[in-house]
């Protein structure tokens, strides 16, 4: 028995009409809540037999990815961006300091403030790189760089904790991702996998990492993001038990060095004017009337600083 090889045009039209009617529900729901719309697709076509419905689902998922933007990427994708940027960070700012004790010390101080941060459910990695530029920056996903010059210029652990907390705040607020949310790469990409690291998509990914480098290494983030990270970071340090004024001391120190220091690729060129930051942070200190009674920890810090 030979099965029917073709369908009547009227059948085809009716089937399309039926599917269009079926899609009306998910489309309306999609406009209000994309996640529920995708669930509705499962209800309409539980066995995933209808090619039309499945094609529409794929399109909806793609549109959903655009609508959700870079800041809604899953952690794995965010971390892949962070790792790629970190590779560029080493090439730009130098290799990590060889002293493993210093690396572990900085990693421990950083992770102590992470416990009191807004996004403590992801792992963070802190690394000191050998460089004479006063700089620190955070890659998406939680890889945080601090230069040996900046570390050497600090006087106590509270200052270090505050600087690291500032960077932790950038990761928590997803500032870097916000800065590149319009990158072409994110058009139609909800997740990053090796599949979209090749060919045309791969080029877009590389361009996006290039954009991130321009933002974090050269132009800097939006000034409001920096002020937000300043105040959030002081709050994380305070919650941990460090005197948040340590952050203002670091800014004061940088202000003194500003005239003679290398500006390119440093906190001097990528961050708002120090005077503005100091003023805003001083205003923020009003929230911490007992700050002076909190920990500063000079001796331990100096012991480790000597190892650099």
């Amino acid at each position, binding site marked *: 028995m030979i099965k029917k090889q073709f369908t009547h045009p009227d059948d085809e039209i009716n089937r399309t009409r039926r599917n269009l009617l079926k899609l009306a529900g998910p489309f309306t729901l999609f406009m209000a809540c994309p996640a529920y719309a995708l669930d509705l697709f499962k209800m309409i076509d539980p066995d995933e037999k209808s090619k039309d419905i499945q094609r529409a689902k794929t399109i909806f998922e793609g549109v959903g990815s655009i609508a959700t933007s870079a800041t809604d990427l899953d*952690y*794995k*994708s965010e*971390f*892949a961006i962070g*790792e*790629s940027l*970190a*590779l560029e960070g*080493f*090439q730009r700012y130098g*290799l*990590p300091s060889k002293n*493993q*004790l210093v*690396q*572990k*010390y900085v*990693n*421990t*101080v950083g*992770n*102590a403030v992470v*416990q*009191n941060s807004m996004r*403590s*459910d*992801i*792992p*963070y*990695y802190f*690394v000191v790189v050998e460089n004479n530029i006063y700089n620190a920056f955070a890659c998406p996903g939680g*890889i945080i760089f601090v230069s040996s010059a900046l570390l050497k210029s600090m006087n106590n*652990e509270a200052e270090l904790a505050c600087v690291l907390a500032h960077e932790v705040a950038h990761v928590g607020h997803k500032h870097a991702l916000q800065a590149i949310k319009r990158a072409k790469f994110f058009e139609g990409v909800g997740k*990053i*996998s*090796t599949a979209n*690291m*090749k060919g045309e998509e*791969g080029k877009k*990914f*590389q361009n996006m*990492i290039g954009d991130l480098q321009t933002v974090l290494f050269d132009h800097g983030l939006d000034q409001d993001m920096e002020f937000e990270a300043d105040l959030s970071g002081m709050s994380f340090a*305070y*919650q*941990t*038990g*460090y005197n948040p004024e340590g952050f203002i001391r670091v800014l004061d120190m940088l202000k003194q060095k500003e005239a003679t220091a290398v500006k390119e690729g440093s906190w001097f060129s990528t961050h708002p004017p120090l005077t503005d930051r100091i003023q805003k942070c001083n205003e923020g200190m009003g929230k911490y009337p*007992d700050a002076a*009674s*909190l*920990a500063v*920890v000079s001796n*331990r810090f100096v*012991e*480790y600083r000597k*190892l650099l």
Partner: protein
Amino acid sequence: MKIKCILALFGFLFISTAVAANQPPSTIWVASDNAKLKADWKSSSATLAEVSKGTVLSVLAYQEKWYQVKLPNGKTGWIYRGKVSETEVQKTQGKEEGGSVGGLLGDLSGSNIRADNTDSSRSIRGLSPEATEYAKQNGTPQVYRNELDKVIDRKVSPTEIDQFLKQGKIGEYQE
């Protein structure tokens, strides 16, 4: 007489406002990982329970930098101020893969700085396949990939952080 009454009224209002402002909140939320419920308002007192981030607590009293609180299960004890928030905190789902649970760090909490010999014996987790692909496409020299491997492989356990804070007399360990 009238002036005295008005002044007394203002005085009463001022004191009431000041007292209200210093009153501890009735409800607080655990805002930190690794928060402990203590038997007394001192870090050296016995730990009664570990309380997870986002747990709602009823405040019974406030002493120094410590809240006396009641947990949803009825257990009471003391919790350090730095571990809580007066605004609601979302419960955490636990660390993402690769989280700081390894406890592989050398002893930083002791009084002396000790060398860590575990680095060379550890297995390297390696970059994600995506970052590896990026490095391949970009021709990133192997030395940078190896260094990033090492960075991602470093982990600090909550216990080590706790000991580190204790040694530095930081937060709840401040004397």
